[in-house]
Every structure is written in structure tokens, then in C-alpha cells.
């Protein structure tokens, strides 16, 4: 699942819940799924480290023999 897919599904779930048309047991399932998607998206954002690397120095450290 990509970030986009997760985000899109999360927003669809919110829309369905807010429309108030969903039966209760289904709403609870949707809510659980929504929380899961939210955590997934949040983790993806938190996981990024924010680094800027130069390819040349990477190549050197990656292959010390050459």
C-alpha cells in the first residue's frame, strides 16, 4: 500500500462515517480500519529522516575497492 492509497481510503472512510448512513457494526469496523490507515500514514511521515547525500561520496563508501 502506498501513502496515497492509504490517505485516499482514510478519507473515503471518514466521508462514509460522516454521512451517517452506515449501520453500527460496520461503522465500528470502518473506524478500526481508519485508525489503522492513520497510523500507517503517520508512520510513513515520521520514518523519513530528512537527509541530503551526494552520490559521489555514497559511491565511494559503498565500494571501497574501486
Amino acid at each position, binding site marked *: 500500500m502506498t501513502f496515497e492509497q492509504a490517505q485516499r481510503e482514510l478519507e473515503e472512510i471518514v466521508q462514509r462515517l460522516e454521512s451517517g448512513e452506515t449501520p453500527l457494526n460496520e461503522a465500528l469496523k470502518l473506524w478500526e480500519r481508519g485508525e489503522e490507515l*492513520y497510523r500507517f500514514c503517520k508512520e510513513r511521515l515520521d520514518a523519513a529522516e530528512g537527509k*541530503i547525500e551526494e552520490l559521489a561520496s555514497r559511491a565511494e563508501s559503498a565500494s571501497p575497492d574501486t
Partner: protein
Amino acid sequence: MKVEAIEYGDRKVYSVGAFNRGVSSWLARLPTVWVEGEVTELRRSARWASVFFTLKDPQDGSCLGVSMARGQFDALRLELADGARVHVYGRPELYEARGEFRLRALSLERFGLGDHLAALERLKTKLAGEGLFAAERKRSLPLLPARIGLVTGNDAAAKRDVLTAITTRFPPANVLVAETYVQGPRAAGAVVDALRALCREGVDVVVVARGGGSFEDLLPFSDERLVRAVADCPVPVVSAVGHEQDTPLCDLAADVRASTPSVAGRLVVPDLAQLLERLGRARGGLERGTRRGLERERRRIDGAHERLGRAPRLLVERGRAKLEHSAGRLRALSPKATLERGYAIVRAEESIVRSGKALEPGERVEVELADGGFGARVEEIQ
């Protein structure tokens, strides 16, 4: 010219001069041709009969020495700068005194802007014919790239612009930068190598950024190899080369074209603040929506429960009302009520007397009142 060899036993040996003369006369038989290349290392002196320069192949860097009669060269008034593209009309020649091979120029033309444009136009038509620029080939950029590749020159401006735009919008971005030549004969090949190297390292999207420059500076970005490499790149490419009006062919082959390096930077990452806000809103909606659903269910159940409690009492009351209604109707129909208002019922021989003519004087009748009754005899008929 005859070339004499000295014989040492069975070995024929040439003097250097003889060898050079021999090669020279052989070279002289080759045809006169046009050669295209870039002028470098132009050397001209009033003391020399010829001017000299090196003609360089912009594709692979091959070099060729060229000489031309100084008077002829000056008469052309070409004012050639290093890197100028020219067409040289000449034939191969050996400078015998030094054994140096070179091209003796008989004529020289600047390969002008018009020629470049025509060549570019031909290449553009050819690549467009292959579908390299087709809209359906364009891929959309990932919303949240795990790592971004950046191909740029080591001139600070374009690189800094892209990186600033990226990290301002999305501070946790990971960027892998490949610095390469972005102008001159080695640029096209170097950019192609950089693109491939970045893809090998694993990036989700590549930005190719180069600031503005002269038409000739930007020519490598219309090089066929580079354009094809951009089109074939396994991940989407954003091209930000030169200024808006330049449109090098790599811009057309890229998946997205950005007008400046800053714009390219903004295109490849989401706005983190906006993203977090949107996520937060979605989560809020999730809770709100679920709670609203629960409350609606509770209200529905409470309502049903209340109606359930009211139901038996209602039934009894409805029954009583119905009963009383029936009783009233029953009473209204009974003669008892009429008798209570002072009327009497007269019977003769068990049947109710409704007319005086049905009776005889002296006949016995029974009279019924609201309360009890009595027997009587008819006195007279009226």
C-alpha cells in the same frame, strides 16, 4: 615523389624524412571533405603563416588538429570563441617536419544558430515520431517519495534552489544529489551516467535541474542520448532546464516539466504542514463520524424503549374508553331511560298497546312504570 629506402641486407629502412614524405604523399590522395566539430585551443600569431586550432567532437571528445592559412582565416572574420561549432572543408595533411597529422582547412564556416535549430528540429520530429514525447507516456509523480534523485551541475544556484524548495515544503525529504557536467562536450554523457547511477541507488523520482544559459550551453539537454535516457528512466523525471522559453528536448521527454529549479523542487514533495493537517482532520472525522453513529443508535434504542413502556397503559385506557362508549349506546337504546322521563308502557294480553282503538271499556291492562307498575281497567275509549 620518390621515396628512397636504404637496404641493410634484406631489410628496407626509411629515413624519418623519407617516411614522412611517403605518408604525406599518400595522404594527399585522400578526398577533400567537410568535418564538423567544436573549435578549441585557437592559436594565432602575426609571425605565423597559418592559424592553428583543435577541432573537438562534442559527442565523444575526439580531437583533430587543424591549420588554415592566416590571411584566409582573417578574411572570414569569424571571431571564433572556444567551443564554437564549425564546419571545416579540408583534407588530411602531414606536417612533415614534425610528423604531425592534421586537417588542412581550405574553408571554414560557423555552424550557426540556424543550423543548430534545423538539426534540433529534425531530431525533435524524429523522436516525436517515435512517441517519446507523447502525453500517454507521462507518469504521475509519487505523492511521498522515499528518496529523490537530483541531477545538477556543481554551480550552486540550481542545486540550492531545488534543495531549498524541497526542504522548505517537506523537511524530512531524503535527497540523493549527483553532480555532473551540465555544459560542454561531456555534459550529455555525464547526465546520462548520473541518471543511471541514481536509479541504481534507488530513487522514486529524479529532478534534472540546470539554470539558464546560452542556446549552446543548453544544447547537451537536447542531445539524443540524454533525451532517450530521460524517456527510458525507470522512475518519473522532472526536468527544469534553462528558462521557460528554452524548451530543450529533455523537457519534452520528461514526465513533468518545471519552469524553474524551485518549481521542480516544490513539485516532487508534498507540503508537510498541509499533509499533517489533512491527516489530523481525517482522524478527527473518523472519531466524530463514529461517535455520531453511536449516538444516533442510542437515541433510536431509547425511543423504542420509551414507547415500549407506554404501550400497556395505553391499551387499557383505549379499552376502557371503548367499553364506555358501548355502554352509553346500550343505555340510549333501552326503554328504561324513556320510562324514567315519565312515560309508561301499557300492555293488554302481553302485547304493547299503541292505539286506543285496540281496547274495549272494562278490559284489563298492565301498566309498567320506571319504578314498578300496576294493573287497571279501561274506563272509556277516546
